[in-house]
């Protein structure tokens, strides 16, 4: 009788074998990702041809044949490509609108403040409370720098505010005013009291059902009719009220999602401890619900930034409105495409930055969630 082997297992495992030939390396990757099947090869070739053709055309227009410098636009008239000179010539109007030329450094300071603090916020160097206080200071500084009248800066009326500083101001005001209102509406929608619940639902659903432009026109055209003449507020403030209400109606639904995601036990435990409604909300429910809803809120915040362009339809000079005004110049009126591409790129960079930060918050949230489950 032959002796049975003690074990088939080897100590330390077998030495690693090489992957099958031709399954790694550059060529294999190329094959797998682009030419795995005949159909895929055809799709790759067609798409590549279209992409190369489009990029070559874009390169010719935007770089090779483009005119970068042309005083009064003379050199642009016979050029076959883009006329970037229009931006070199008009960037101050685009970025600062009708703000007095001598005072445009104030607009530049506002843009710098926002960008610097935005980047510092995204690096997560400071505590959340410090970041929020910083934003409050940035917001107040924005208004102070635009308005002037202090520290020897001449006063500038709201009708002259414009460009990127105005866009930032509208955006900041929308988020700062809209978030508290959104929280109130979301709490109202989940309230036990039928009258409050009905009012919140009616407000949210009505505002969500009509276009932002209609809300803005209501605020800009109808509000003055319904207020006594003594209370008449500036057009900018009226439009801002419309923006805040619209943002709040959308954000309220996101906050409500966060409230619903919270286990009922949290509030029940707080109730059992004898906390009042507002204590429960402030100490227990809202901190957790808001943390859950922040990544989704970021989508609404980015939309609020994109929606600042709607002010140009009301005749206010945000970046788009200022660019439209800059392109009215008969010398440059033919180069609208270049001007709007500049605005396109500006928004693209800022919105991409915000959406990247939003995604990092989402990942941080997911990590925190896992830690709690363990």
């Amino acid at each position, binding site marked *: 009788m032959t002796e049975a082997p003690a074990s088939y297992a080897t100590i330390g495992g077998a030495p690693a074998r090489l992957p099958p030939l031709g399954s790694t390396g550059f060529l294999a990757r190329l094959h797998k990702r682009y030419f795995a099947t005949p159909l895929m090869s055809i799709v790759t070739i067609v798409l590549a041809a279209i992409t190369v053709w489009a990029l070559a055309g874009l390169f010719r227009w935007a770089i090779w044949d483009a005119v970068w410098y042309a005083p009064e636009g003379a050199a642009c008239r016979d050029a076959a490509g883009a006329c970037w000179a229009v931006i070199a010539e008009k960037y101050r109007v685009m970025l600062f609108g009708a703000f007095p030329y001598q005072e445009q450094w104030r607009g530049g300071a506002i843009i710098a403040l926002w960008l610097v603090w935005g980047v510092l916020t995204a690096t997560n160097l400071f505590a959340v409370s410090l970041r929020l206080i910083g934003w409050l200071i940035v917001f107040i500084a924005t208004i102070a720098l635009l308005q002037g009248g202090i520290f020897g800066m001449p006063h500038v009326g709201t009708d002259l505010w414009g460009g990127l500083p105005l866009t930032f101001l509208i955006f900041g005001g929308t988020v700062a005013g809209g978030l508290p209102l959104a929280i109130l509406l979301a709490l109202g929608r989940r309230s036990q009291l039928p*009258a409050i619940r009905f009012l919140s639902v009616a407000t949210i659903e009505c505002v969500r059902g009509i276009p932002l432009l209609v809300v803005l026109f209501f605020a800009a055209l109808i509000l003055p009719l319904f207020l006594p003449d003594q209370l008449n507020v500036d057009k900018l403030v009226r439009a801002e009220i419309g923006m805040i209400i619209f943002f709040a109606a959308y954000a309220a639904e996101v906050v409500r999602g966060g409230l619903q995601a919270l286990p009922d036990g949290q509030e029940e435990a707080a109730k059992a401890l004898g906390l009042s409604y507002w204590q429960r909300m402030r100490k227990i429910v809202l901190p957790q619900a808001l943390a859950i809803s922040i990544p989704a809120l970021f989508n609404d915040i980015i939309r609020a930034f994109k929606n600042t362009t709607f002010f140009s339809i009301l005749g206010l000079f945000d970046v788009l409105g200022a660019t439209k005004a800059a392109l009215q110049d008969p010398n440059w009126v033919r180069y609208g495409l270049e001007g709007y591409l500049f605005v396109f790129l500006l928004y693209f960079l800022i919105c991409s930055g915000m959406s990247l930060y939003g995604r990092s918050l989402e990942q941080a949230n997911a990590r925190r969630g896992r830690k709690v489950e363990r």
Partner: protein
Amino acid sequence: MPFWRQPRSRAIAWQALLLAALAALGIWLVLNARQALIDRGMTSGLGFLFDETQFALGEAFFSFTSGDTYLKAFAVGLGNTVLLSAVSIVTASIIGAIVGFARLSPNALASSLARAYVYAFRNTPQLVQIVFWYTFFTLFPAARLSWSFFDFVFASNRGLTIPAPENMTAFTAVAAAFLAGCALAWWVAHLADRRRRRTGQKWKSAKPVLLATIFVPALLVWLAFGMPLTWSIPELKGFNFAGGITLSPEFLAIYFGLSFYIAAFIAEIVRGGLLSVDSGQIEAANAIGLTRIDLYRRVVAPQALRVIIPPLAAQYVSLLKNSSLGVAVGYPDLFSVSNTMLTYSGRTIEVLCIMAAVYLALSLAIGAVANFVNGFVQIPER
């Protein structure tokens, strides 16, 4: 416990207080508005709807000239908004579905192009895109130097001129009948499927009956109109085109702006829906030898649609609402027409309220349709 300490009576008191405060605010606002109207010598009421207008509208289903009533102007605006939204919704859905599938494609070139598309169109304001498209379309050459595609389609700074059926009413009626036939066929197929599940009997003559349901109504309508077949082909005459129909740069700008922007969002929704189907489902379907079409029709679509439809409906509502941006390029949609009307009539409150009510009704209608469809795609819980 005294009654003012009971939670129930306190709740009633708080709500009564809130409602009273709101009512007082409302009365105060209305009184202010009445005073303002009296001060400005303005009248109110809906009677102005039957007054004659002093403006004409460029693009309309039916000709709208100065002297027609305000009510008719509303109808023109509403028609344009509905038409624009409908074609944009179809276009955005098609582009969105293609891009959404492409993002998950094993082909790295297709997926990265799709990702670039989504990034570029999602991270920029829709209004900037619309204004950009408008500028783009107005830079096209004049009619005499227009680009032609096989002498059928002409692109010039007057817009896109395309062939059109001579008898437009007949064409619309036939198309509507065809769509109605498709809906009816889908309904019949749904009933037949339910019957098969209940009784286990297969309906033998299903295919011919369904084909007949799709094509017979359209055929009947076509016969009723006297079998029109002629198409009007555009032709350059002097400085303009004769024949065909011309899609104006305004329409093209808002149409492109709405479609491409919303398509980027739809692509992400489609991608999310496809990813939500468990990979085990697809492996199981492959294991039992389903064809690729059956895999998508029987396994992926029913599960993905549950996830896709609610956010998709929200995007459609968003598209409808943003069609109001037509005002930025001068396309006579509901908002733009209302804007003209309130300038001419001075009835700011009435015009804005009617417009808001119409948009609200349209949004709710899309929501209702989405709910109806959602009821079909939900998998019943057992």
